[in-house]
């Protein structure tokens, strides 16, 4: 047990019962439990997914951080590791998976592609970064990030979880208990329903410019 993170430093607990007694706050206990069992959604998009698998294997062993339980169903996952190029054709499926994940949920953008389009940004079927649609918690640079970089990113995520407070987290507030992102539509090109008005205006402007 990782007592350092769980116990509050200002209380002196006699050494012989330190393994049995801990004085802490509810926040710390809550976060300590969550940070140590972040279950990723089992889904790989592209090349980066291979390094993700390598990080799960014996040399790097993500199990040390409680992250080895890959869940194929979004209903049981805590974290979505976007490991690779997000294409327009795949995006509706990714957003739907995100919507199906229960809170608390985190998104990690692994690699250049998921963070901003990467080497394929100019491609006609490529979304320039998953953060155009989903709220990203941690970005991991690299093409692909080495397993060490991936683990560093996971530790960053744990640090982020450590700072959350049970009083403030969004999933205990009033209102709908998950964040839903409108699912993009595959039209003549990718349509983001949140930007319908903007698209309409720009398309109309294009028409006037071309007739002028």
């Amino acid at each position: 047990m990782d007592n350092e993170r769980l116990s509050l430093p200002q209380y002196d607990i006699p050494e012989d019962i330190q393994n049995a007694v801990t004085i802490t706050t509810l926040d710390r206990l809550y976060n300590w439990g969550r940070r140590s069992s972040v279950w990723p959604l089992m889904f790989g998009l592209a090349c980066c997914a291979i390094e993700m698998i390598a990080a799960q294997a014996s040399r790097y062993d993500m199990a040390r951080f409680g992250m080895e339980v890959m869940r194929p169903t979004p209903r049981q996952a805590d974290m979505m590791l976007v490991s690779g190029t997000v294409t327009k054709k795949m995006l509706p499926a990714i957003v739907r998976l995100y919507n199906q994940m229960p809170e608390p949920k985190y998104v990690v953008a692994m690699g250049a592609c998921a963070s901003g389009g990467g080497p394929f940004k100019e491609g006609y079927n490529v979304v320039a970064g998953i953060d155009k649609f989903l709220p990203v918690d941690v970005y991991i640079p690299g093409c692909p990030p080495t397993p060490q970089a991936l683990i560093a990113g996971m530790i960053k995520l744990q640090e982020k979880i450590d700072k959350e407070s049970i009083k403030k987290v969004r999933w205990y507030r009033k209102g709908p208990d998950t964040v839903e992102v409108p699912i993009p539509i595959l039209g003549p090109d990718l349509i983001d329903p949140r930007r319908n008005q903007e698209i309409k205006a720009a398309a109309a402007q294009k028409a006037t410019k071309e007739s002028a």
Partner: protein
Amino acid sequence: MAAPVSTQTVDLAARFPGAVTAEARPGYAGFIVEKDKLVEVATAIRDEFGFDLLTTVTAVDYLPEDKMEVVYHAYKTTGGPGLVFRVQVPRADPIEVPSLIDVWPGVDLQEREAWDLMGIRFSGHPDLRRILMWEGYEGHPLRKDWQEPFYEEDVKPFKSRWPEGKHVMAEEKNPFRDNVKFLENFDPEKWIPENEEMLYSSLKRYTVQSEDGMSTDRIVINMGPQHPSTHGVFRAALTLEGETIVGLKPVVGYLHRNHEKIGERNTFIQNMPYTDRLDYFNSMSNNLGYAIAVEKLMKIPVAERAEYIRVIMVELSRIQNHFIFIGMLLNDLGAMYTPALYAFEERELILDIFEAVAGSRMMCNYLRFGGVVRDVPEDVMQKIKGLVFERLPAKTDEMDRLLSENEVLVARLKGVHVIDGETAIKYSVTGPVLRAAGVPYDIRRADPYSIYDRFEFDVAMRPNGDLFDNYIIRLDEIRQSLRILQQAVKQIPDGPINSQKPQYQVRVPAGEAYGRIESPKGELGYYVVSNGKPNPWRYHVRAPSFVNITCLEQMCIGTKIADFVALLGVLDIVMGELDR
């Protein structure tokens, strides 16, 4: 085991006067076939001339000449050089070319790709839908007059980056401030999204009558694109009767990253790192295929030492690919993780070598035209020797002992039919799947490239074409690769590692070239057309994963859904290469 290389020259023009003319453009080879006679000529090529394996179908848009061209590459499974033939049509819609699906069913997906990306209608194709993009997408992206939303200039390096270096975000130049474009006055609220009716109606073609008068519901289920056993974002739409598969359509394109469009903007050398990302397990082999294609065009030799280094790297890559294949196959079959962990252990050691020579574990970007980019240091060579003489042979035997006689595994794999040799050839299947079906076709022997003719090795072959043979052939191939490696590390000479000076921009004379290698997954080919400019006019990747799934439907009909996962597993697909 390979058949003698045929020296007979094929004169199609003499056989079909009037319908076929020999290619006259400098730098090009093969024959031009009249559109109306295509099916007839193709049948003769297959039956009379014996080119039974059609590997590549692709299209080239010759915009300045106002022509579209469909290029076919046919080979003999007994070995020898190939035959290129092509059809030219005027570049005015509708562009129609007869489909060759009745001659070689393997053209199915490749013709759909040419329709999707180039807008060529193949008349007679029963199911001509878009394949990489979705139905309803605007335009045919690989046409030369089609521009992507983030279009900047025709060729790289873009002036905004070099030499001035005043880069603005691509989003800022696009009216929609994103990687999208719409026609004027487009109204997103009025758009009716496609509900994949065409896909599902193509599945309805399989109607089987129940014999005993019982009416059973046939259900359609979708596996993927997010499914733990589909190795990435592959999707299959299946029709089931009970547990039996009666219809199947692969749905791909979820990782279509526009390699070809980007590749035609890139300079020749800039494409090298992009090839790494095709089959991301084997960046070394991807590099080799591309390097061979461009070297053919440039007509340059490869430095002697570099040839050996290339073979060493590519064979190491094949070994780690097959190890991972075995681990993943066992994963799919339910032996969760343990075999895969063994496989990944060996892979890490091989990746260490790649990292030591190339600087990156996975994306090596190691080959250059005429050689390789860095030499192999002596200590790394020692490590390689340790691996190929001691560790890897021992580990292969260990894997063999661990799995091959395991009763549960054998019961699960033996006798589950994958594909027979004849069908495999018809469907343009290459690689271990073809060889496990009793056809000893390995390009390293059938049409040797690089220096493979100097090594002693056997073409692995297994006769039954069932799941077990498909598994065991991977172990055979690992052993043969080790044989090649042992000879290569002993014979490797000293000397320069590149026949050319290191250069940023290469001169490539006009012409076409098709470079192909035996990648761990099958025939990996690059079709490159140059017009003498610094970037390729056409850059096409013939990906083994993509062509191999053409026969998936054929393989799966009549089997149980539980076997689907294993059948897909033995094809060893990689989405980066499948969707490109």
